[in-house]
């Protein structure tokens, strides 16, 4: 068997793939956070809970209504996004005039409520969600075995991330959005319904989290706490990348996933903390983050 630095290459590629998948989730989630932060100026602490809701809604659609994976991939983000919009309209929108930190506190409280409710309903052990039949099995790439579903997760999140980048940077709607980020009052004066734009943006960011949740459901067990630890890592990713750039969020997410995967191969003890260590280093060298603008 081929070896690189005395590590079997199959193990190395396996961990790299896992890292790539984690990176896909980091990218999708930090992208959602960045989109929301751009317009609403709040850090959405509920993001992890909404990712978990995406997975649960997918599971519920299958278990209670018999709706399979593919429709769920569209329906679950829509449902989670709609719930998010209700939350934005009824609660978050009351805080825009206050210090941004209140938004963080409010969404933290909401995350506690959502996770507590799901923990009451479904326990903490985790529920299985089967890989859709079209994507079960895998292909042998010669140097490694690639389970089809894992390949699909990477491709699907890449496509969604790039589509988001395209919408925001290249379309008219995206132009409104960027303009409203710069100066909401002026954009409103031009006759654009900024509060609606804000609500839709929040819904979209949350839907991204829901989408990541459905993608994750067949890989990780669906359980109420699946989002809470992930979201803290994503916060570190966001600090490293800075929230100024959409592409920056995507690149940072994937890169950190890969680094984490590599750490798992070469120094497994540090795998859980490597991203936080990188965050500390970035804070020392470039406090605004790799792609950040503010000082």
């Amino acid at each position, binding site marked *: 068997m081929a070896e690189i630095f005395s590590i079997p290459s199959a193990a190395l590629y396996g961990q790299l793939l896992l890292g790539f998948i984690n990176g896909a989730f980091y990218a999708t989630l930090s992208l959602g956070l960045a989109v929301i*932060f751009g317009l609403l100026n*709040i*850090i959405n602490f509920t993001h992890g809970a909404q990712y978990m809701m995406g997975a649960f809604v997918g599971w519920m659609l299958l278990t209670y209504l018999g709706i399979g994976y593919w429709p769920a991939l569209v329906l679950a983000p829509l449902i989670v996004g709609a719930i998010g919009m209700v939350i934005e309209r009824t*609660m978050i929108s*009351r*805080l825009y*005039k*206050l*210090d*941004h*930190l*209140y938004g*963080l*506190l*409010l969404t*933290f*409280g*909401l*995350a*506690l*409520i*959502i*996770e*507590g*409710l799901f*923990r*009451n309903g479904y326990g903490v052990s985790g529920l299985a969600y089967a890989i859709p039949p079209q994507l079960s099995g895998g292909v042998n790439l010669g140097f490694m075995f690639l389970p089809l579903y894992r390949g699909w997760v990477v491709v699907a999140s890449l496509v969604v991330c790039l589509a988001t980048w395209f919408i925001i940077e290249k379309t008219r709607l995206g132009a409104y959005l960027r303009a409203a980020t710069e100066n909401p009052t002026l954009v409103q004066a031009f006759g654009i319904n900024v509060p609606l734009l804000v609500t839709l943006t929040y819904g979209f960011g949350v839907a991204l989290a829901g989408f990541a949740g459905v993608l994750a459901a067949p890989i990780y067990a669906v359980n109420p706490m699946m989002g*809470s*630890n992930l979201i*803290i*890592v994503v*916060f*570190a990713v*966001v*600090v490293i990348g800075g929230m100024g750039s959409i592409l920056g969020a995507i690149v940072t997410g994937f890169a950190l996933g890969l680094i984490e995967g590599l750490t798992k191969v070469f120094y497994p*003890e540090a795998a*859980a*903390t490597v991203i*936080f*260590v990188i*965050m*500390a280093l970035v*804070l*020392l060298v470039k*406090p605004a983050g790799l792609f950040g603008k503010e000082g």
Partner: protein
Amino acid sequence: MSAKAEPVSADAILVDRPTRNKRLHMTVFLALAGLLLIAPSLFYPFFLMKLLCFALFASAFNLLLGYGGLLSFGHAAYFGMASYVSAHAAKVWDLSPELAILAGTTTAAALGLVFGALAIRRQGIYFAMVTLAFAQMTYFFALQAPFTGGEDGIQAVPQGYLFGFLDLSDTMTLYYVVAAIFLLGVLLIYRIVHSPFGQVLKAIRDNEPRAVSLGYRADHYKLAVFVLSATLAGLAGATKAIVVQLASLTDVYWGMSGEVVLMTLLGGMGTIFGPMVGAAIIITMQNYLASLGAWVTVVQGVVFVIAVLLFREGIVGVLSKWIKKPL
């Protein structure tokens, strides 16, 4: 953090009469000391000791949030690590309780110095995220490091003899020691807040560019208050390990960081007595709702949301507005 959001009202400025306020505060502190003396005959002392540890923890946190204007979302790191080191020192190194608590507190101070120096390089929301991320790193460290006992934690921590002669396994002795630590801790915080250092701190909180233009090095003040806050949070955690004879992962988990934010917010941030009231309410609530399991989290979340949406000044904040005197 409320600087931009809620400008200081005219009457708040009018009532800033230092000597008269000081008399009021000293009266409250005396009443508090009296209450601490008679409390064990009214409540279960073990419950009271736990409450006092959390009240000190929340007060330490409030020093940073309420007076420094810095929202740390990772104070569990200092509380929890101090608790681990204190438990380890008492159990494995066989240190006396005062040295164990000192070891824990020093650890928290060192940790606060490192994390604080990095975290103050970012502001606002980023600061909160950075502190949270470092706390999570500490959690993973506690999960993996051999001396913390992983999921089991450090159990059966000996209470020993304070200064060699006060037997802390006697509940009442332990209670009065904890009460003394608590009182000294909050008096120290009161002293810090009302010192020239505290005045500059509040100036930086309210208008950082202006304070900088007056020649104050804002970063030094921020780091100093961060370390002070982490140290006192550590004191609370180290004491708690001796009281409950256990150091566990719960104390370093992000849930604990959130809890201390909630206590401070509910009681009233930027008030001296608010965090104690908040801690008392949350700990009492947890005590009564313990049988409800995961519903405790839901209730806490609901309290959080209500406090943020409708009750941002907190209980003591509202009270202080009522009597038109800072509390």
